[in-house]
């Protein structure tokens, strides 16, 4: 690693101030960023550790809305249970030691095309709360490793509307355990949302045809007759574009069948 300074603000205001340092970079749990730095793929002047920002920790429920602080670890979300499908998703990210460090804000800010949280946020129509504004999930994800976040902007919380039923199905890439294809299905009073991770060169996306079919009839059989185009699907040694496209439908069906 190239060397850098480490700042440890205790408040959001101090974190924002620290991020004004030239080439500063926010540090969540570091489970992606530190390996990236080891490979010298980034050379920030300063890492602003968000672990000590108390306002960004923890989970609070208000009616059917769940607010998760940006610095909340996967392990904390996994143990929460207010939004069962989300907790189940968090309990299968990485491994136990990774879940004790990695954070929801870090995952969403990185927007890895095979990460799990982006599928949950998009399928839930979550709101990404930052140091300067609130961003709807539909506007937040802008492509592989690309988001609506501006320079110096930090995710302080994520607000999830709790659905009537939901489920996440992940077909794991057997070596990395990341999602080869992951599908999050969430059923709300005003319709069903389906978000797919791991599959597309554009990163997480909504499968709108399935949403329409499932909103009319929330059953795996409603997907019969639908197909997913292999255009722009990721193709690598783990699976072809056609294979991933096929898996999207299979995993969506499984998620619907398992939704509770």
């Amino acid at each position: 690693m190239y060397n850098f300074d480490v700042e440890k603000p205790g408040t959001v205001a101090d974190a924002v101030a620290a991020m004004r340092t030239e080439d500063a970079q926010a540090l969540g749990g570091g489970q992606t960023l530190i390996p990236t730095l080891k490979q010298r793929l980034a050379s920030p002047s300063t890492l602003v550790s968000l672990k000590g920002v108390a306002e960004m920790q923890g989970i609070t429920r208000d009616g059917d809305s769940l607010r998760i602080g940006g610095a909340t670890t996967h392990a904390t979300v996994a143990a929460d249970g207010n939004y069962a499908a989300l907790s189940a998703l968090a309990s299968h990210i990485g491994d136990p030691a990774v879940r004790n460090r990695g954070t929801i804000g870090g995952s969403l800010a990185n927007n890895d095309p095979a990460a799990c949280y982006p599928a949950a946020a998009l399928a839930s129509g979550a709101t990404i709360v930052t140091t300067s504004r609130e961003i709807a999930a539909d506007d937040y994800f802008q492509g592989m490793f690309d988001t609506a976040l501006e320079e110096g902007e930090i995710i302080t919380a994520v607000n999830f509307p709790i659905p009537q039923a939901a489920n996440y199905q992940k077909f794991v890439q057997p070596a990395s355990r990341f999602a080869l294809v992951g599908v999050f299905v969430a059923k709300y009073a005003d319709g069903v949302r389906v978000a797919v991770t791991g599959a597309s060169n554009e990163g997480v996306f909504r499968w709108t045809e399935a949403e329409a079919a499932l909103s009319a009839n929330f059953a795996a059989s409603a997907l019969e007759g639908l197909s997913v185009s292999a255009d722009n699907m990721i193709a690598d040694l783990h699976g072809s574009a056609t294979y991933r496209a096929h898996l999207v439908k299979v995993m969506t069906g499984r998620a619907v069948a398992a939704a509770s």
Partner: protein
Amino acid sequence: MTKVTMTVNGKTVSGDVEGRTLLASFLRDDQGLTGTHIGCDTSQCGACVVHVDGVAVKSCTMLAAEADGATVDTIEGQANADGSLNVIQQAFQDHHGLQCGFCTPGMVMSAAALLKENPKPSEQEIREYLEGNICRCTGYHNIVKAIMAASGQDVTAIAAE
């Protein structure tokens, strides 16, 4: 350089670190606690697992500066006060839960974390919990068996001898 102070295996220690100094490097190079191993250095293998404020973390993927003020427990602090092996370590010896031994410190620290949150894990739960600990000798059967034995469960039904 920044000064960090932390409690390692019950003792207060401090040292000067760079921003980029990993917790694993601080423990090994500054404190001489070389029981914490660095295997893959990419947070996959788990040989570097230690406990920070009571939970398992991969010390090769955490900055020493972030552990300032924390309580850190490593493999060196696991033995009983009289120097004898603790129940998990003894079970690893009794059930041949190690071959070359490189992954063992991480395995023992992960096992300790597991048994703290789940005192009687099933074989399946143990295997899932060890997802982030790799044994390149592939000695998993006896590692799982040792952890089951350490939790006071009957291990006669576990496959490998």
